[in-house]
């Protein structure tokens, strides 16, 4: 009998080299909610040119949003089982700088078709920078606000849930909430300007379609154009591949834009093997060495430093 015991151990040892690789190749399927493959949806994946033309076909962001909703047959409600997996820490590539349209060709100031008034403002801004004069309205720690929110090169997380999606930017602890529970915007008579506006949306397969209004004016980014408090956007967010979250963005802003501005935004998933990249609380006022003011000639200057000659901290 004891020989049979030994034979069993020998057979087990002989079999291990075959069993272990098979087990490693075929880990148990994840059945937890939120790991589902996204269905295709009804809105087709259009080319950049087709999307730009689509924007021009609609007079307002709201009209475009309603057209997309009709195309998606109203969209589908997410459930715990169909929430897409957008987990990870992402950032916007900065290899082409921080311009609002990441596909802006070198040497081109902007791909936006601006009204004459706003083109003149942009021309002056760029000329001032060449003279060494530049002031950024977020220098006093104000949040960038949407649509500039799309451009900042810091850590990001994207968190879909069945009833709302959180679009998180590390900078100033900035979170855009997109409500997908069927609610409408705030009534027009009760709207007031907000940094990130009011965002509602619907899901079409793995695509999140968003309409944002109730925004306040700002700049798209340094050395980029201005937008006004009439700006509204439509965005289609999706997971483009395992390493990329992408957004098609249409901006409507009649005082500043001669026609809707369509851009593609992409956010790359950061390698984070040791899980060291974590979004921390961002207190813009915590270090007085960062405090700046606008000088009389309109440029930027530090208020003062806590360091310098020996004996001073």
């Amino acid at each position, binding site marked *: 009998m004891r020989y049979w015991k030994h034979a069993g151990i020998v057979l087990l040892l002989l079999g291990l080299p075959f069993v272990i690789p098979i087990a490693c190749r075929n880990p148990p399927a994840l059945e937890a909610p939120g790991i589902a493959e996204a269905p295709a949806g009804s809105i087709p994946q259009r080319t950049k040119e087709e999307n730009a033309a689509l924007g021009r076909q609609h007079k307002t962001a709201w009209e475009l949003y309603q057209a997309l909703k009709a195309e998606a047959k109203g969209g589908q409600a997410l459930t715990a089982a169909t929430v897409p997996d957008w987990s990870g820490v992402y950032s916007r590539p900065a*290899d082409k700088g921080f311009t609002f349209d990441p596909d802006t060709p070198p040497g081109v100031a902007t791909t936006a078709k601006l009204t004459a008034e706003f083109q003149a403002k942009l021309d002056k801004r760029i000329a001032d920078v060449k003279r060494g004069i530049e002031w950024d309205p*977020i220098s006093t720690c104000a949040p960038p606000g949407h649509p500039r929110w799309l451009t*900042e090169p810091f850590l990001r997380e994207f968190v879909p849930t069945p009833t709302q999606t959180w679009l998180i930017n590390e*900078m100033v602890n900035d979170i855009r909430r997109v409500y997908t529970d069927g609610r409408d915007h705030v009534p027009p008579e009760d709207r007031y300007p907000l940094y990130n506006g009011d965002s509602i949306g619907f899901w079409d397969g793995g695509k999140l379609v968003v309409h944002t209004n109730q925004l306040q004016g700002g700049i798209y980014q340094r050395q980029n154009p201005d937008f006004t408090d009439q700006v509204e956007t439509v965005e289609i967010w999706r997971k483009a591949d395992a390493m990329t979250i992408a957004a098609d963005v249409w901006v409507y802003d009649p005082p500043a834009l001669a026609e809707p501005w369509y851009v593609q935004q992409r956010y790359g998933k950061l390698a984070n093997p040791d899980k*060291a*990249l974590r*979004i921390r609380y*961002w207190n813009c006022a915590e270090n007085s060495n960062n405090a700046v003011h606008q000088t009389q000639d309109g*440029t930027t200057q530090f208020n003062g430093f806590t360091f310098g000659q020996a004996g001073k901290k």
Partner: protein
Amino acid sequence: MSRRLMQAIAVLGVLASGSARGLAHHSAAMFDEKKTITVEGEVKEFQLTNPHSWLLVDVKDKNGKVTTWGFEAEGPSTLARAGIKPSDLRPGTKLKITGNPMKDGRPAAIWVNAVLADGKALNPRAGFAVR
């Protein structure tokens, strides 16, 4: 193209891009980005703060007079993406550091690159690469 090669190109792109040089909270107009200065000294304090971190470096001149220079960089998460950790820059750490100086002559600069005694290079701008 291999992923590693693409990553290297992305980092080089960030380093080559003038647009990426601007500091993300405020303009860099007070710095002279056409000039660089290099000093040798030892770390006095590493202020890991948002929106910008400051590396304070004590620099001794030939007469023994100490000036504390401040080198401004991005916040802690961007530095972490560049592989720069608090443990690299404890007070007393000796280093050679290069930056774009202030136009008005005050002892402050944009931190461009630092080299530790063991040769390790610390380049904050590498933290903007997505890889």
